[in-house]
Every structure is written in structure tokens, then in C-alpha cells.
């Protein structure tokens, strides 16, 4: 296996709330290989966006990296000065924020917003920036004569493409995209995902794709990282993780998802809601909602361990995963005793 592009080790991120720290991400550990698309999946409040933002250090003012490492191209970026970090942003790691399509400046043309990045950050001349802008627009499938248009003249999907073009501007090695297709219609969503796949093939970039939608993961990702209540609960190759999940949370997510490709069945919700991170349960954080909970789950924190090769899960009952998977298919399993 080649050297990973990004290697997270025990990364923790805390928010200061009043006089207390709330740990939003705890001990996140996973790798991103060059040229791969990694899906970071979880519900709202599971820490996926916080984790994504921490990698370019665009966190809220009350948040800080509380521990661990994020090694990018052999260098730990956690300890980097703001100045050095600034050198990495756009050039090495680009970030597409959530609803990026609404983050374009309405009073400048999209061309001048691209030129700003290319000239100020990339040190290009005007003419070179213009040529590069046209190239970027071709890559993301927008006609180059629209560089002079303002953001409001584009549809939501087109604005999302502009945001991708901006992220690609300075040839980064890694793009972090936070819910890039969430607000879009299915057809536009598919076109944007196809674009990401094509750019990966053409440019060999890596992508961390933050999403709550496992169908999106199944469509574009090579690997998947499942987060629950601030912790990574399962990670592995996409196909193995989705077809044979080893963590009950991932099994539950799969049941909750409508599937157009198979017969119309029942959908089974995961009852309850994620824990309050200011006051998380001891032991496994999924324990209060888990149908397979045992005494030790309430007290001991499960660690990520290998289920099969590089498919890992943090569950005390990982050895029984196959049996649990069968039981998880039945909707009665997930019913809460009234």
C-alpha cells in the first residue's frame, strides 16, 4: 500500500461551552490514500463537519484541537502555525463548506472570485488567471462564457460546480467537501457526483466527502468512515462495510434507508436520538439505542479493532457480527419495548 496522503491519529476536538469543554470529536483515527474518495458518514451532531473543518483549521472560535495528530504528506498539521496553515489552504487542502452554493459573494462575478484566489493565493498574473479559470470551468462542465456572470444568475447545481472549481483552482491534493449534494435535486446530485468521480480519475486528487446519505457513499466512495456521537465506530472499504457492516449502528442505518433497487420493504428507524455530547453515556455511546446491548457496553468504551483486514469496528460484540447482522435485518429487533 502506498503512503497515505492524510493520516489521522487519535484526533480530538473540543468546544468550549461556558466553563466546560464538550468533546465533539474523540480519538478519530483513519487514513486517506492518494486518489481515493472517503465518505465520512453520520447523523447531524456526530462531529463529521467539525472533523472536516479541523483539517483546514476553519473551526468556530470556541473550538480547538484537543489532542492527536493529523499527518498530511508526512507533516503533522495540528501543530502548524496559522501562517504555515495558510500556505496549505487552497494549495494543498481545499475545503468546500456546507451549502457552498450560498457562500459565493453576490456582488462579484464568479470569474472575479476565481481570479482572486488564483492571483492573491496562487501568485498568477491576470492573463494566466483567465486561462486557468477557463480551464477550471471546462473541468466542472460550465461554459466559459459564464465567467462574467454573477452568482444569482446560476442555478443551485451550477453554483455548486463553481464552488468545486474554486476548490480545484490551485491544484490541491485533497478536497474536503461538506455535504456537497445535500440540498440538490437527484438529477443535479448525480451530475455533481459524476463530476467528482471524473476529476478524481483525471487529476488523481483525494476527496473526503462528508454526508449523511449512504447511497451517496455507495455511489462514489472507495472507503467509508462511520461516526456516531463524536467517535469513529466503523471504517473500511466501501463495499465490505455496506454489505457486511460490523457495527450495529451501521446495520441500523442500512435498515432505515429506502432502496429503489429492491422490492419495497419496511423501513426500520433507530429509536431514540444521539446522546448529548456535553454529558455522554459512559461506555459505548450507541449503547442506549443498541438492540444488542450488554452489561459491558454500558461501562467499557469499545476500541476500533479489525473485523476483516482493514475493515474495523468499535463494538464489544464484533466477533458475533455475522449473527447480529442477521438479527438486525428483522424490524422487531429494533422495536423498543413499550
Amino acid at each position: 500500500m502506498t503512503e497515505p496522503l492524510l493520516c489521522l491519529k487519535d484526533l480530538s476536538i473540543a468546544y468550549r461551552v461556558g466553563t466546560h469543554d464538550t468533546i465533539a470529536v474523540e480519538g478519530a483515527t483513519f487514513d486517506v490514500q492518494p486518489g481515493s474518495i472517503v465518505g465520512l458518514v453520520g447523523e447531524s451532531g456526530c462531529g463529521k463537519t467539525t472533523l472536516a473543518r479541523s483539517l483546514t483549521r476553519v473551526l468556530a472560535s470556541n473550538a480547538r484541537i484537543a489532542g492527536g495528530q493529523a499527518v498530511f504528506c508526512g507533516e503533522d498539521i495540528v501543530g502548524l502555525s496559522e501562517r504555515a496553515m495558510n500556505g496549505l489552504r487552497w494549495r494543498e487542502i481545499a475545503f468546500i463548506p456546507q451549502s457552498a452554493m450560498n457562500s459565493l459573494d453576490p456582488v462579484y462575478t464568479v470569474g472575479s472570485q476565481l481570479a482572486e484566489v488564483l492571483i492573491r493565493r496562487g501568485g498568477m498574473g491576470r492573463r494566466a488567471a483567465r486561462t486557468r479559470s477557463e480551464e477550471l470551468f471546462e473541468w466542472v462542465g460550465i461554459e466559459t462564457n459564464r465567467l462574467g456572470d454573477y452568482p444569482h444568475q446560476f442555478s443551485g447545481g451550477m453554483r455548486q460546480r463553481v464552488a468545486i472549481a474554486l476548490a480545484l483552482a490551485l491544484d490541491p491534493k485533497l478536497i474536503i467537501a461538506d455535504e456537497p449534494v445535500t440540498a440538490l435535486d437527484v438529477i443535479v446530485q448525480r451530475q455533481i457526483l459524476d463530476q467528482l468521480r471524473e476529476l478524481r480519475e483525471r487529476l488523481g486528487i483525494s476527496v473526503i466527502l462528508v454526508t449523511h446519505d449512504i447511497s451517496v457513499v455507495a455511489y462514489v466512495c472507495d472507503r467509508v468512515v462511520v461516526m456516531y456521537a463524536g467517535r469513529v465506530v466503523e471504517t473500511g472499504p466501501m463495499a465490505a462495510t455496506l454489505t457486511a457492516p460490523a457495527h450495529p449502528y451501521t446495520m441500523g442505518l442500512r435498515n432505515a434507508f429506502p432502496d429503489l433497487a429492491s422490492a419495497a420493504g419496511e423501513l426500520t428507524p433507530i429509536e431514540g436520538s444521539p446522546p448529548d455530547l456535553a454529558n455522554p453515556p459512559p461506555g459505548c455511546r450507541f449503547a442506549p439505542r443498541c438492540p444488542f446491548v450488554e452489561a459491558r457496553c454500558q461501562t467499557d468504551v469499545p476500541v476500533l479493532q479489525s473485523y476483516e483486514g482493514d475493515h474495523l469496528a468499535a463494538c464489544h460484540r464484533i466477533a458475533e457480527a455475522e449473527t447480529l447482522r442477521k438479527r438486525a435485518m428483522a424490524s422487531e429487533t429494533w422495536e423498543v419495548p413499550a
Partner: protein
Amino acid sequence: MNDTDPPLVRLDAAELHFPIGGTLAQLRGSATVVKAVDGVTFELRRGESVGLLGESGCGKTSTGRMLVRLDKATGGRVEFDGEDVSTLTGAALKRFRSRVQLIFQNPFEALNPRFSIRDVLAEPLDNALIPKAEHEERILRAMALVKLGDAAQFMGRYPHQLSGGQLQRIVMARALILEPEFIVADEPVSMLDVSVRAGVLNVFREVRAKTGITAIYISHDLALVRYVCERTIVMYLGRIVEDGPTEDIVANPLHPYTQALVAAVPVPHPDQSHAPLPIGRGAPDPRNPPSGCTFRDRCPKAFDRCTVEAPSPTRIQNRIVHCHLFDLET
């Protein structure tokens, strides 16, 4: 209910046109109209649950708003139980409002933050002049219907103390508390997390089974529509393109737009087709739709006739398709 019963809801060439451009443009004569809904015709039988499917801007929400008379049709007819809803006034309108309800998309914004859950649910009862003595019982019944378990525990709480899934159940309880006959749900789970979505959809199914309510479910996601509706109407740029049983549409979409829409829905499986979508790039522009068939500029199968003539509905077995490919065959 059977086929000979009169329909509960009937739209006949219903139109909802919005003028655009300010006063100045109108004086200058350069103002135009956006045809949000442009000649939509369908009927709903009692107890039917129908999905309105399409991209943003296709007119599905506008159609829903006309059905509950949040907007008055600017043309054609919208009938509820045999009456033209756009002419309703006074007591008749008030009665209509208690028979027809809307479930909103965003439960986080649909409830007054200063109202306790009890107040939220009592408000429609007050509006409908239901005696106070009956309130408690009806509130409890509505909360049981949406499976909010321990109702007493929620009564005194405020919206910010509830999770998204619980809030959406309250929004549904509020819509159902007057025991309406017809309900329009506008993307009711799009703001919810996946793990709780299924719970709300299951409530929707159970409510239908228990009350026999007639429902319209508005969504852009065919996988969700399929879960709660046995019939689907697909819209594109203000017009219907296909109308038929949901399972048939999923298995064998006929209209080229429906084909693209079905192919675009991602599925949670590792092995799935990555073939390019059979649809042209670009987005529909409601201010300036193409002549003839409004889908023709993105349609891979468009031919000369599509430019000059809007397709009329063609019945193919139990489906209605608006496409020249099919009126040629018949």
C-alpha cells in the same frame, strides 16, 4: 371506496401563474408571467395516497398550495368534494380549512417557539370552536396516532426541547387533530436525520391505514414516495409528464424525464450503474420554457414535432404519459 365514487379532489387544467417584474415593467409592458403550474389535471379518489414528484421549480409545491387554497388558482378549476375551492368564502371556507390540512417541510420552523406542545395542539381546536372539555381527550388521541408514546411527558414542553423527529410528529398531530379528510405533506422528512426518517414515514403509513385519509406527498425523492404512495404523478416545469402506479413507474418509467429521474436515484449498494444519465445538462428555466414540449431541450429522444406541439395525455394501460413518442404509437 371504488371507481364509481366521485373523486374527493379534482384538478381540471389548473393554472397558477405569477406575474414577474415590478410596476415599472408592467407599465412598460415588459412584465411576463412564470407559469408555476400550467394546466394540471388529475383526480384523487377517497383514501388514495399520491406522490407529487419532481425537481425544485417543477410546480409540485405550488400545486400543493392550490389544493389547500394557500394560493388561488389563476386558471382552470380546483375542486374539493365537488365544490370549487377558489370561490369558497366565510363559513364555507372555514369548514374547508378544517377538512384539509398541510404538513410543513421544516418542523424546526413550523411551530411557535413560545407555545407549549399543549398550546400548539389546542390552537386548531380553538379555531374550530371545539368545546374546551373535549380538548384533552382529542390532544391525547392525536398524539397517540403519531406514536408520541408518553403524551403527558410532552404536553408541557416547548418545541426547542424536542428532537426533529418528535417535532415532525407534533406537526403531524396538529394537522390531524381536526380529523381532516385530505392532507398535503410537503417534503415532511427532508429536514430529518436518516435514522429517524423511517419512524416518521411509518407513522404516515399507519395514519393512512387507521383513518383512511386521502393524501398528497410532495417530494423529489422517488424512494420516499414509493414507501408511502401507491400512485405517483411526475411533474416537469409546471406540467404533468407521467401519472401511474408507483411500482410501475419505478420498474418501467415511460416518459424520458421519468427515466432519467429513476436512473438518478442513488441506491445504498456497492454495485450500481454509473452510466451517464439519459438527460441533457442545464436546468429548466421557468421564466422562459421551451416551445412545444417543455422537456425537449434536455430530452435525448426529442424530434421535430416536440418543438412545435405540446404533447397531450396518452393513456397506456393504467398510466397517463404526456409524450409524443407515445401518441405516435396509438
